[in-house]
């Protein structure tokens, strides 16, 4: 009896302490808005263990261990609406220098495809682009074609019969496919799965013929001779795959789509002060040069691209302009 009482009491006090702690955090964070932030909350758009969450935690870990930052940047998970929630969180703190977020190119698409979106990436203050994930096209090893143009010829022979597997209809890989279909006048099916695993098994099983993603998604299956790459969606071939040509080299026009399609960067709230922006840019510029970070990007299949200022604004604008007509061609949501 006594023991169980103690257990429950302990549980309750832990719970209370937890609520108190979160309350303190948020009030501290919002009160400071000087040039060198006292506290930095790092907002990400996935739950714990998700892609952006691990990316942010790894970034903070390396920055701490290399003494680039002295205080921890606690990661705040706001997975609502695949980026919309995280954007709205930042939008609600205009002028604050205590909040940053790890954005991806998906945030632009999410806002474009949601008529009642609470926030857009262009509402926020972009700080830096950090890395880009080159998109590649994979097919089963025993497929009768070894290039994307071969797949397109097959799609022309069997209109609406071949299958590409991927994520949601709004994902970058579907937009790439829509652009290629538009440019080549072909049509194939898009099979959505919410996890990456079933996409690979769909290819291995023969339910789907192609999948567009990062090289790291397919790496081991390629080494094991189960899958092969049939095209690179970029302006350059991929290191390690000199024999796989880019789509342009295969004569496939990607229209307006830029070379960087799946990028990651850091943004701040609207009207973040220029001194705060340059503070974060300084930290990040140091971070991206460390061997630990370079090595981490390599394990994730990411290419380093450190872009700030006007070049970053132009990059975001180009991406937005080129995907808008594609997103508009999708069935309207909301």
């Amino acid at each position, binding site marked *: *009896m006594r*023991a*169980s*009482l103690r*257990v*429950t009491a302990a*549980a*309750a006090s832990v*719970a*209370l302490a*937890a*609520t108190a702690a979160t309350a303190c955090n948020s009030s501290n964070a919002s009160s400071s808005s000087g040039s060198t932030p006292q506290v930095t909350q790092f907002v990400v758009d996935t*739950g*714990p*263990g998700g892609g952006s969450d*691990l990316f942010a*935690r*790894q970034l903070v*870990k390396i920055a701490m261990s290399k003494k680039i930052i002295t205080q921890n940047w606690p990661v705040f*998970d*706001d*997975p*609502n*609406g*695949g980026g*919309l*929630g995280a954007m709205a969180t930042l939008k609600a703190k205009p002028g604050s220098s205590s909040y940053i977020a790890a954005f991806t190119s998906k945030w632009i698409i999410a806002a474009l*495809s*949601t008529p*009642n979106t*609470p926030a857009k990436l262009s509402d926020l203050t972009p700080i830096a682009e950090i890395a880009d994930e080159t998109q590649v096209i994979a097919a089963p090893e025993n497929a009768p074609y070894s290039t994307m143009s071969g797949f397109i010829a097959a799609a022309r022979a069997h209109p609406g019969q071949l*299958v590409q597997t991927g*994520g*949601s*209809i*709004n994902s970058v890989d579907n937009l790439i496919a829509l652009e290629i279909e538009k440019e080549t006048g072909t049509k194939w*099916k898009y*099979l*959505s*799965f*919410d*996890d*990456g*695993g*079933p996409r690979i*098994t*769909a290819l291995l*099983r023969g*339910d789907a013929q192609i999948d567009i993603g990062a090289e790291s998604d397919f*790496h*081991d*299956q390629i*080494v*094991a001779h*189960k899958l092969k790459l049939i095209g690179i969606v970029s302006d350059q071939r991929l290191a390690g795959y000199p024999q796989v040509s880019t789509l342009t080299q295969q004569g496939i026009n990607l229209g307006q789509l830029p070379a960087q399609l799946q990028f990651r960067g850091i943004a701040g709230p609207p009207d973040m002060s220029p001194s705060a922006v340059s503070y974060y840019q300084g930290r990040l510029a140091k971070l991206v040069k460390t061997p630990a970070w370079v090595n981490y990007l390599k*394990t994730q299949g990411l290419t380093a691209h450190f872009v700030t200022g006007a070049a970053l604004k132009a990059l975001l604008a180009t991406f937005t302009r080129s995907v808008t007509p594609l997103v508009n061609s*999708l*069935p309207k*949501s*909301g």
Partner: protein
Amino acid sequence: MSALHNLADGLGTALSLTNLLWVLVGVILGTLVGIMPGFGNPAAVLALLLPVTLRLPPATGLIMMAGIYHGAKFAGATTAILLNIPTETSSIVLCLDGHELAKKGRAGPAMGMSAVSGFVASTVGVIALTFLAPTVANFAIKFGPPEFAALMLFGLLLVITMTGRSPIKGFISMATGLLLATVGVDLFSGAQRYTFGRIELFDGVPFLVLTLGMFAVAEVLVNAEQKLNAPLFTVPRKIRELLPSRDDLRGCRGAIAQGSVVGFLIGALPGGGSTIGSFVSYSLVRSTSKDRARFGTGVMAGVAGPEAANNSEAGGAMIPLLSLGLPGNASTAVMLAALVLYGVQPGPLLFTNHPEIVWPVIASLYIGNVALLVLNLPLIPLWVRLLKVPYWILYPCILVLAIVGAYSVNQSTFDVYLLIGFSALGYAFRKLSIPAAPLLMAFVLGPQAETALRQSLILSNNSPAIFFERPISATVLACAAVVVVLAVYGKVRGRPVVPAPAGTVSVEAAGAPPAEPAPSSSPASSPERSDIS
């Protein structure tokens, strides 16, 4: 025999003193997380602990993670049985018979049975993983959308057969669950369904918030108004009554064996997971049982089967992770992330290229389970005493934990309001004697069934023939048909015995703990039984 040799090597590595210490830390941590919903789900804890585990050697770090995984599973079973709060989707089934057993004063045996069947099943799971991994991996690849759709249909059939005394009320509950499951942004079309423009609802209703409201808070509300003075549970004094009897164990042998196999096979499917495994196992145990009418009123086999499936799934889930590099559920997804951060790329070559990691992990899964059994059997009397805590202490604590738990899912106050709404719904369900379990099951299975069905129809250009043309899908559908026949047959035969609906049995109804039914109580049911398992 090289597999056996490798496993022995792995056990040798995993059994170092440091590793044993870390597996203990993992099991205790996992149990704490599973007991208190406010701490978040095991996947979240694993993710938060990634930086810590990365300081350890790879095998040690993964061993600790396996400990957390097992600990959280057992803790989910504990809260479901004792308090009717399933903190994990895979423990929903335990609310049906496990909590009824607790109300009859048999909480200890139910928890013991959960631990024992879990232990036996993970032994089966680890042995199967050691010897059958390549074979089962090939089977798992063949399991596509039509096969999943057939399996989900099977699962939803179970929900229908479990609706208790009033099929209409069960149907209301299931339909509400399916409706709640549609909330969110649709994967295929990007359309918003019942989100009312709130981004908090774009990813659907959080499972934990729904369960805490429908079960935990509703339970507190109903009990608080009914029995402020009477003790809520009959708590046995004798230590012998705290563990499963020999009769219990003998009566559940078949259920444990069946659950182990089902759980392992379903766990091996990418996207399968223990929830479906435990549902399917419960359905099979129930429909092959000689007195299926008593299921839902506190039957030991209704705990043993699903818990076996829930635990052998861990062995099965490692197959897609280790041999294909594909995680089967959220927890294995985090372990995948850890492997990658250690510089080990899981995939078809992991077994040959990194045996020094794979085999200790397999061995540690097993050790995690043994540690759980050793730690928890002696602790069961302590857990059961939780039921003796007076309501005026227990209830406020549950309410605080529920609110903190709901808030911590997305760190959003919106979810706390959702919790209040679902608590009201849960209270209304209790008052109207509508069972809540079909709602939760439909909520879990509904979206998966819908996704698999739509994917299948995309593949077949809208022809339903795809479900009968593919052999595995056709087989699963045939099994489902047999279950329907058995269920109808059971309803007709079982008329005189009126089953009480789950969750509404009054405590006084159960005096002495009933033994497992004698095998002779229902003759002439053997011909059909062999068809299924």
